């Protein structure tokens, strides 16, 4: 072994690159990455199935019916008029003949509505000249007009035919429509951003805990600054997530386009689609780096999956609150709440993405991104400091003693 060193000093960034390269290739060529890529399929399939089944069940079992109980002649006249009306008002419920009454025969409409064997929402009784609609308040208020029209038709007091209305579809949407659609785009963007950041920050946390399990962390900590270790891990997972997003994006877009959709059918975000997508990637990256650095700080204090779950639960809940905060703020553009949501580091990426959908000014994004970079740097530094402060405080357990990582437990610990 020669005594002449053959290596040179690494800068923090170069050291981070060594870690990132190792982690990136290790994750990319692992089996778990394949399942990671398939990950979004599962909620889509489950959601699709659940939605389809739910809609079908709702369609078949929950569709309310309107009953009619009149004399035979009145039932015939009312049914004919109602069918004609139903051609114009498609939302009307089906008309079901409950009873054809003999002259002078009494009928309890309330009992018919309450009868569990039938699916009646309301019942028409009386005569076309004096119809009585029995049912819950909201339904009878909604249906009194159509019932009145049908009765008038049955009496011959209404037009026998309806002129065909020619439909003229407006290509450009109204301002109100556009604003509503942009809010939908913003909401969708925020939700996707939130789900992705939570998923990936959780993965980087597992990665660190696994590393501690492999006892490699001490070798890393001795060779390079912990800031570099943290940065490397964050960058690696970010690169992995970009690969994942690219695969999901390309596949999803292909399926979406194949289904006959086009971006032109949707209102463009205020900054335009290309800029919106660009900003979405940037805000995703910043959101992930912020949350990931926080999770790494937690991971530095935990040594088992159980400890990780215990420690990360409050952070996950807080992040959920941040997401709700940003969502709430989105509906109040320009308000103090919205500005606060763009300033609070952990809600800032969500709030700013919503702003990109609603507000065309670009300089605000430059400012927000700069602020988020500063916050990431602070989080990474704080995480590395915590790691150095709380971890590595003792050697391995011997004689059945269990290694502990939590600072407060270390009182019972002896250094080795």
């Amino acid at each position: 072994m020669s005594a002449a060193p053959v290596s040179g000093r690494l800068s923090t960034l170069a050291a981070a690159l060594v870690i990132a390269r190792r982690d990136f290739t290790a994750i990319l060529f692992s089996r778990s990455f394949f399942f990671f890529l398939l990950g979004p399929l599962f909620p889509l399939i489950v959601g699709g199935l659940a939605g389809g089944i739910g809609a079908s069940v709702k369609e078949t079992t929950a569709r309310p019916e309107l009953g009619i109980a009149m004399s035979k002649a009145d039932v015939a006249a009312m049914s004919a008029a109602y069918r004609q009306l139903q051609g114009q008002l498609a939302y009307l419920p089906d008309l079901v003949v409950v009873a054809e009454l003999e002259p002078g025969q009494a009928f309890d409409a309330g009992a018919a509505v309450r009868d569990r064997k039938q699916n009646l929402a309301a019942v028409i009784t009386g005569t076309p000249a004096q119809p009585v609609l029995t049912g819950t308040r909201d339904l009878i208020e909604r249906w009194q007009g159509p019932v009145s029209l049908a009765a008038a038709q049955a009496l011959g007091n209404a037009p026998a035919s309806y002129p065909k209305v020619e439909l003229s579809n407006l290509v450009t949407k109204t301002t109100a429509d556009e604003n509503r659609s942009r809010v939908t785009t913003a909401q969708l963007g925020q939700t996707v951003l939130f789900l992705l950041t939570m998923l990936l920050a959780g993965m980087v946390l597992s990665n660190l805990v696994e590393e501690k399990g492999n006892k490699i962390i001490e070798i890393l900590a001795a060779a390079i600054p912990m800031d570099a270790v943290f940065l490397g891990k964050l960058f690696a997972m970010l690169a992995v997530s970009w690969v994942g997003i690219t695969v999901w994006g390309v596949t999803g877009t292909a399926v979406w386009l194949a289904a006959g959709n086009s971006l032109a059918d949707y209102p463009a975000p205020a900054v335009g689609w290309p800029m919106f997508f660009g900003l979405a990637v940037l805000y995703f990256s910043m959101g992930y780096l912020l949350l990931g650095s926080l999770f790494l700080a937690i991971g530095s204090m935990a040594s088992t999956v159980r400890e990780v779950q215990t420690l990360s639960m409050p952070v996950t809940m807080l992040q959920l609150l941040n997401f709700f905060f940003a969502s709430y703020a989105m509906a109040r553009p320009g308000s103090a709440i919205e500005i606060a949501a763009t300033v609070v580091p952990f809600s800032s990426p969500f709030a700013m993405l919503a702003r990109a959908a609603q507000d065309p000014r670009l300089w605000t994004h430059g400012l927000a991104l700069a602020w988020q970079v500063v916050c990431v740097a602070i989080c990474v530094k704080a995480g590395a400091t915590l790691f150095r402060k709380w971890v590595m405080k003792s050697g391995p357990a011997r004689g059945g003693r269990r290694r502990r990582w939590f600072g407060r437990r270390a009182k019972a610990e002896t250094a080795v």
Partner: protein
Amino acid sequence: MKLGEAPVVSNAGAGANRPLAIEARGIVKRFDGFTAVDGVDLTVPEGAIYGILGPNGAGKTTTLRMLLGIIDPDEGVRRILGHDRPHEVAHTIGYLPEERGLYPSMKAYEAIAFMGALRGLPLAEGRRRGRELLEQHGLGYAADRQIRQLSKGMAQQVQLLGTLVHNPRLVVFDEPFSGLDALNQGKLERMMRGLAESGVTVIFSTHVIAHAERLCDEVAIIAGGKVPFAGPVDVARDRIRPQVRLETRASDGPWRAALPADARHEGAYWMFSLPETGVEPLLRALIEGEAGILSLSIERAGLHDAFVAIAGEAAARALEESPEEVR
């Protein structure tokens, strides 16, 4: 406290005139009020084999971690290869922690290359040297095997080679003999001597006195977070007087008055510390007292006796109770 002041403990041994690879003054580390390391002073000359000897829980690992910059001392100063910040010279240091760790999915040569890359060795060069080192140490056949496919002993060797792949000037081993069989302990000892001969400073912690005694030019004896002695092994041994082993024909007589107060009878022998007046007055008194000397030998104290004398009985007992080692 500043570095460069007169050292608390003299290094008046083999490395007296050599520049220092490690210099630490008054380093302290507390964890939640518990003082793990309490004002440790160390001076390790370049090219020396230096042992940190103490029982489990004495503060060895914490001291090494502070020297390497893994954690910072709460008080005191340290200088590694002339730098206050150990990470600035990380590319010239090799470190083998007590708890061995490698990525299970990495191939053996890649693991070595990765450890080199952490120390600034270009990855391609690390891969080349990794294969070369594995060949040199009889593990060439395992170069392309994943770490998880290697035996524990082989994985330990891979990690050891990874510690040395970048040709460090200073190598720090934390309990390096832990978990190794006697054969591999011997190989590691030879490797450590070889490193020192090529000018590399070797510092290691151990709770096995035999290793320290065989290998070290200098030792630091650590117990309860304090270092009551740091210096050449010979100086430590000279801390206690040589032991006299005496066998006499007469079981009693006037010669008994010549024995010092600490003399104890063990089997056929009397054991006691050599009086400060030396051996000649003792011999004269024994002869004049008609002891009938059958044998008399003077044995220099071993490092174990020195450890007991310096660190105390309790620390020595803790040292002996430390598990899993072949002593």
